[in-house]
């Protein structure tokens, strides 16, 4: 199988924030949702997803609490905090800027 494409640095945090902006979710759910929404293009290894979650937790953008999953398993659910929403907006804007710049180079170079 072809290796999943590398994300731009910092992009995973942005995607995680975006996914959690809709509803609270556990780690596995986030990975699944990312895969679904990107039509299977973006697959995140757990080895980068969990550090990302811990990073966002550490910086106060997320909160975590244990709850019961769909199958009645104990799962850790992540919720976006107020700071997280602000961060999402800021990172989104920054990302759009970067993508626009890249596109511009691609088109005009």
């Amino acid at each position, binding site marked *: 199988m072809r290796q999943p494409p590398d994300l731009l640095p910092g992009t995973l945090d942005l995607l995680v924030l975006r996914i959690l902006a809709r509803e609270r979710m556990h780690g596995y759910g986030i990975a699944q949702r990312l895969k679904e929404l990107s039509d299977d293009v973006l697959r995140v290894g757990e*080895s980068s997803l*969990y550090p990302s979650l*811990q990073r966002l937790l*550490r*910086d*106060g953008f997320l909160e975590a609490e*244990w709850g019961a*999953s769909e199958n009645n398993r*104990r*799962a850790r659910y992540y919720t976006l905090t107020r700071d997280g929403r602000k961060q999402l907006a800021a990172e989104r804007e920054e990302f759009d800027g970067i993508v626009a710049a890249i596109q511009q180079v691609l088109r005009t170079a």
Partner: protein
Amino acid sequence: MTGWLRRLRARIRYRHFDRDLVEELETHRAMKERELVSTGLAPDEARRQARRDLGNVMLAGEDARAVWIAPWLESIGQDVRHAVRSFRRDRAFTITTVLTLAIGIGATTSTYSIVDGTLFKPLPYDNPERVVMLMSRNSQTGNLAESLGGSEAATLHRFGSLFRSGSSTFSCPSCPPRCASSGISPLMPGC
């Protein structure tokens, strides 16, 4: 709560924090396994693949932990715990080592203090370079006399104190500036 406060809390409640992480990763693995089974994979194969997909659970945990706690700090903690445990296991060795070190360091330190105090440091009063040591020697036998003779003691007493100037001459407040010391007998003739 600021970043370092959250980190500190993670550090203090480390066991709790670690348990959460391990359990979370295990939950993830189990969910994945379940999904793989539902796609028709044999349970054994599903388990194996779920484990493989999670990368190495331990490694994922390490990476996630490293976000909070500098890994080198954690490994110092481990080293210290390991050292303490080994010391406890082998008492005789520990005591020998500690004593050897203690005596070695103690001896070196006191030797240094003595040498420093007697040879290197100036004496702890004004004009230490002018202090002199007086000795009285019997001119016939060359033996050191046990005490100063009466007249010498009287002279000393009269001057109260004596000062040395130069390496081989004496002077005192009311003396002629320099008296040759080589021939002093009795103490400072002509002073």
